[in-house]
C-alpha cells in the first residue's frame, strides 16, 4: 500500500537549483487519505520512504525532515528553523521527522565536521523559498489575481488587497503541477523572523518528560536482546569458548561466535541472545572464552609516547606545508625555544552506550539506532550483506551523544550479522565497559614546536606531529602527511609569518582510532596555540597584541577586540591568572580567555571562561551558546580529568569510576559571545573545544609561572 502511495505521489525535483551531487527535492501529495496515514509518521511506520525536506499534506499538515543526526548539537531545531523562515510556516505548527539514510536524496548525511548547517543552508533556503513561491503562484491563479498582490505568512497565501487567505493545504495539489520557478527572492538577514533568534529547541519538551526515543529505547515486536563479549585486546580471535553455563541462565536463548569488522580487520566476539537485556548480560558473564591475543599484549601507553618523542627528535617527517626556510633561521637564532607537547588517547564516552536494533530478512534489512551517518551505514550494510541499497533501511533515533563514535560502522554491521544468524529482530546493547575498552579512540598525538624571535617578531616557526592517523585507517601506507596537520591553526598566520613549516612524522600502531569532537583541532590546537603563547613570552609581549600582528584580517581583529572587551583583558594585572587561545576549524574561529585563581584551599580554580565565536551566518544563538558551553566542559575533561591508557594491550579504564568525567562541581562559568556578520556559515558543534586547553594552561602559566605541555594534568596538583 505504501509503495503505491509513493508511485502516485507527484514528485517535483528541483534539480535545477542545486549541484549534481545533491538531489534535493520536495513533493506534494495528491491523495489526502493516503498522506494522512503517513504524515507525522510514528516510529513503526517509518518504513515509508521519504525523499524530501518539505511535505505539505492536503490537510495543511507541514512535515519537515531533519536529514542529519540529532546528537545534542541541535539539527532537529536548526534545520526546521531555516526551512520555516523561507517557507513561511510557524514552527509550532510543523512536524519534524528524521530522514532515513539516503545519499541520493539528501546528499551527505554524515553528522560530522560541524557540517549540517554550513553544508546545507543555502540549498535549504532556496528550496524553501521555491516551495513558498509555488504556493503563492497557485493561490494567485486560484483567485485569478496577480502574483505580486499575494504573499505568504504562517502557512497561508494571502491576497493583500482583499485580505483573502488560503491554507497551504488547499493549494498543494495545484502547486504540485507547477514548474519550479528558476529564480526566487531570498530574505535579507534583517528580514528574518526566525533565523538568528534564540528560539526554544523543538526537542526540548520531549527530553524533559522521557518521551524522546533514543536508540536503546527502540523496541520491535518479538525482539531479542544481545550482549557480546569481544576480545579485550582489540583485535584478537576466539580460540575456543564454552557457552554451557550461559545457556543455563534463565532467559538466555542462544550463544554463538560473531565477527565485528573494524576498519580492515575483524574482532571476534561471543554473543549471548536472551529475552531481556539483563538476561543477556548475565549470560555473558557466565561465558568462558579463550582468546588468541595476536601480539597485542605488548601495547603500552608509555612506549607510545617514548616512540613519539624519538620520532620527533630524529625524523623530519612528511612535509605538509612550508613557506620560507625555517631551518637555517632556527639554526642561527639566539632567542629560540624547542619544546614537546603531548595529548592523550580519549574515548568519546557518549552517555548512551552504543546499541543497534537490526532486523535481517531475506529481502530487506532494516536497522534503528543512534547513528551519525545513516548514508554510510546504508552503503556499508548493502556491501557487506549483498543486499541492494534500496532494500537497506537505516533509521536514526535521537542519539544520546555521539562526538564522532557513532559515525562508525562496526556496531551496526555486527548487529545485522547477529540478526541474520538468529533470523529475527535483535537489539545489541554495549555496556559502559565495552564503550571504554573497545575503542576506537581519539589518537594521542605528540608535537614538537621550534620557534625563534628576532626584533620582537617570529623569525621562524616549525611544527612536527607524531601520532596515529585516521586518514590511513584502511591502509598502513604513510606516504602522505596527515591531511589535517594544520587543522585548528588559523589560516591568517600563514599570511604574516615568513618562515613556517608543518610536518607529520608517521607513527604506526594498530590501535583503532578515529575522530573525536573537533578531530585534529582538539589536539593540534593545544600544541600550536600553547606554542604561540610561549613565543609571545619569549618576545616579551602581550599574548593578544602578539597575535594581532599576525592575524591581520578584519574578522580576526574584530574577534580579538571583542575578546579584550568582554574579558576586561586590558585592565587585568600581571600574574592574575589570565590565559588565551584562538583556534579555527570547520570554517569557524573561536577565541577563549580563561581566568584562574588560587583558592583558599590552595587549589587552582577556574573563575571564568569567556568565549567569542565567529561562525559567520548562523541560525540559533542559544544553541550556539549551548554548544560552546558544552565544548568547554568536554575540553576541560580531556585536559584535566580523563585519558585512555593501555597496559599490556588492555585498556586500563573500565567505567566512570576510572574514566572520570567533569561534574557539576567542576563547571566553570562560561560566557559566550557571537560575532555578528553574514559571512558564509561555519560550524558550531565542535570549534568551541580546541581553544580551551591552551587558554587554561596559559592562565595557569600567568598565575604560577609553570608551563604545562602534557595533557591531561591534574588541576588539583598545580
Amino acid at each position, binding site marked *: 500500500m505504501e509503495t503505491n502511495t509513493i508511485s502516485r505521489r507527484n514528485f517535483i525535483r528541483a534539480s535545477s537549483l542545486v549541484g549534481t551531487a545533491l538531489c534535493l527535492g520536495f513533493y506534494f501529495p495528491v491523495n489526502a487519505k493516503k498522506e494522512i496515514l503517513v504524515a507525522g509518521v510514528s516510529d513503526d511506520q517509518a518504513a515509508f520512504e521519504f525523499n524530501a525536506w518539505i511535505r505539505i499534506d492536503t490537510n495543511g499538515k507541514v512535515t519537515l525532515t531533519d536529514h542529519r543526526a540529532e*546528537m*545534542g*548539537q*541541535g539539527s532537529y531545531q536548526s534545520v526546521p528553523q531555516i526551512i520555516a523562515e523561507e517557507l513561511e510556516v510557524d514552527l509550532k505548527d510543523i512536524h519534524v521527522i528524521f530522514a532515513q539514510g539516503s545519499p541520493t536524496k539528501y546528499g551527505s548525511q554524515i553528522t560530522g565536521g560541524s557540517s549540517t548547517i554550513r553544508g546545507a543552508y543555502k540549498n535549504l533556503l532556496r528550496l524553501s523559498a521555491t516551495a513558498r513561491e509555488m504556493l503563492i503562484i497557485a493561490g494567485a491563479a486560484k483567485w485569478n489575481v496577480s502574483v505580486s498582490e499575494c504573499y505568504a505568512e504562517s502557512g497561508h497565501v494571502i491576497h493583500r488587497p482583499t485580505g483573502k487567505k488560503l491554507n497551504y493545504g488547499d493549494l498543494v495539489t495545484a502547486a504540485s503541477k507547477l514548474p519550479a520557478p528558476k529564480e526566487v527572492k531570498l530574505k535579507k538577514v534583517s528580514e528574518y523572523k526566525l533565523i538568528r533568534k534564540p528560539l*526554544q*529547541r523543538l*526537542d*526540548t*519538551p*520531549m*527530553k*524533559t*518528560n*522521557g*518521551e*524522546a*526515543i*533514543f536508540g*536503546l*529505547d527502540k*523496541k520491535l515486536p518479538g525482539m531479542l*536482546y544481545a550482549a557480546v563479549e569481544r576480545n579485550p585486546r582489540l583485535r584478537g580471535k576466539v580460540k575456543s569458548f564454552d557457552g554451557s553455563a550461559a545457556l543455563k541462565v*534463565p*532467559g538466555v536463548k542462544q550463544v554463538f561466535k560473531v565477527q565485528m569488522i573494524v576498519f580492515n580487520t575483524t574482532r571476534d566476539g561471543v554473543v549471548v541472545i536472551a529475552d*531481556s*537485556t*539483563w*538476561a543477556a548480560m548475565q549470560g555473558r558473564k557466565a561465558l568462558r572464552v579463550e582468546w588468541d591475543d595476536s601480539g597485542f599484549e605488548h601495547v603500552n601507553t608509555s612506549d607510545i609516547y617514548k616512540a613519539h618523542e624519538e620520532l620527533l627528535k630524529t625524523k623530519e617527517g612528511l612535509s605538509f606545508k612550508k613557506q620560507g626556510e625555517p631551518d637555517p633561521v632556527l639554526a642561527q637564532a639566539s632567542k629560540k625555544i624547542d619544546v614537546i607537547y603531548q595529548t592523550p588517547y580519549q574515548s568519546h*564516552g*557518549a*552517555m*548512551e*552506550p552504543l546499541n543497534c536494533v537490526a532486523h535481517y530478512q531475506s529481502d530487506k534489512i532494516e536497522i534503528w539506532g543512534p547513528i551519525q551517518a545513516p548514508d554510510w551505514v546504508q552503503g556499508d550494510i548493502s556491501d557487506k550483506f549483498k543486499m541492494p541499497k534500496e532494500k537497506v533501511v537505516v533509521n536514526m533515533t535521537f*542519539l*544520546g*551523544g*555521539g*562526538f564522532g563514535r557513532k559515525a562508525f560502522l562496526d556496531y551496526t554491521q555486527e548487529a545485522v550479522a547477529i540478526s541474520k544468524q538468529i533470523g529475527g529482530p535483535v537489539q545489541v*546493547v554495549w555496556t*559502559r565497559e565495552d564503550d571504554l575498552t573497545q575503542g576506537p579512540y581519539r589518537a594521542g598525538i605528540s608535537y614538537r614546536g621550534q620557534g625563534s624571535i628576532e626584533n620582537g617578531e617570529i623569525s621562524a616557526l616549525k611544527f612536527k606531529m607524531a601520532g596515529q592517523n585516521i586518514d590511513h585507517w584502511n591502509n598502513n601506507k604513510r606516504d602522505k602527511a596527515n591531511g589535517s596537520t594544520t587543522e585548528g591553526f588559523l589560516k591568517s598566520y600563514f599570511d604574516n609569518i615568513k618562515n613556517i613549516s608543518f610536518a607529520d612524522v608517521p607513527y604506526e600502531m594498530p590501535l583503532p582510532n578515529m575522530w573525536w569532537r573537533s578531530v585534529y583541532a582538539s589536539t593540534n590546537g593545544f600544541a600550536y596555540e600553547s606554542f604561540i603563547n610561549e613565543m609571545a613570552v619569549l618576545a616579551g609581549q602581550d599574548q593578544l597584541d602578539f597575535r594581532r600582528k599576525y592575524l591581520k584580517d578584519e574578522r580576526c581583529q574584530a574577534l580579538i577586540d571583542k575578546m579584550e572587551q568582554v574579558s576586561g583583558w586590558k585592565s587585568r594585572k600581571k600574574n592574575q591568572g589570565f590565559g588565551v587561545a584562538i583556534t579555527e576549524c570547520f570554517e569557524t574561529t573561536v577565541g577563549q580567555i580563561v581566568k584562574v585563581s588560587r583558592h583558599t584551599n590552595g587549589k587552582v580554580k577556574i573563575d571564568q571562561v569567556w568565549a567569542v565565536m565567529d561562525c559567520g551566518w548562523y541560525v540559533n544563538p*542559544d*544553541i550556539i551558546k*549551548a*554548544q560552546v*558551553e*558544552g565544548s*568547554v*566542559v568536554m575540553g576541560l575533561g580531556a585536559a584535566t580529568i580523563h585519558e585512555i591508557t593501555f597496559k599490556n594491550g588492555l585498556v586500563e579504564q573500565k*567505567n*566512570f*569510576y576510572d574514566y572520570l*568525567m*567533569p*561534574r*557539576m*562541581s*567542576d*563547571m566553570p*562559568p*562560561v560566557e559566550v559571545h557571537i560575532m555578528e556578520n553574514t559571512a558564509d556559515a561555519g560550524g558550531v558543534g565542535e570549534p568551541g573545544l580546541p581553544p580551551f586547553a591552551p587558554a587554561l594552561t596559559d592562565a595557569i602559566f600567568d598565575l604560577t609561572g609553570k608551563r604545562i605541555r602534557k595533557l591531561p594534568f591534574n588541576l588539583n596538583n598545580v
Partner: protein
Amino acid sequence: MITITVNSQRHDIDVDPNMPLLWAIRDILGLTGTKFGCGAAQCGACTVHLNGEAVRSCVTKTGRAAGQNIVTIEGLSSGNNHPLQLAWNEMNVPQCGYCQSGQIMSAVVLLRENPNPTDQDIDDAMSGNICRCGTYQRIRAAIHKAAAMQAEGAKS
C-alpha cells in the same frame, strides 16, 4: 512474581528478583525514559524515586523494590509541568537529552529537601549525575529558576 508500583500503577512482574530495577522498568514495563548509562551507579542517568528517595535503578534490585512506590520521569507530572520541567524547558537545558531524566529526578529530591539551594548545595546534590554534553551551567540556572517558581507558587 514481584509486585511493584510504578507511577501509581501496580504491576505484577515475573522477573529474577536480582534484575536491576532499571531493566525491569525499561524492558518489562516499557518505560524508556529512565536511561542506562554505566550500570555501576556512577552517572545517575537511571535515577528514579523509590519511596520518594532518589536511587540509581541500575544497581537497585527489583526484589528490593517489591511492594514499594517507584516514580520515574514519566510519572513526575501529568503535563511536563513540574516546576523543574518548566524551568528545564525555559532554560533550554537539554542537548542530547540522554542524562536529563536522571538530572531532573535528582533535582526534584534536592528541591524538596532544600527549597532554596545555594550553588554549593547544587554542586553537592547534583554531582552524582554526569552530563557529557556539559549542560551543567544551565542545569544550575534551571534549579534556581524552579526554586523561585516554587517559592512564588507557595506565596500565591
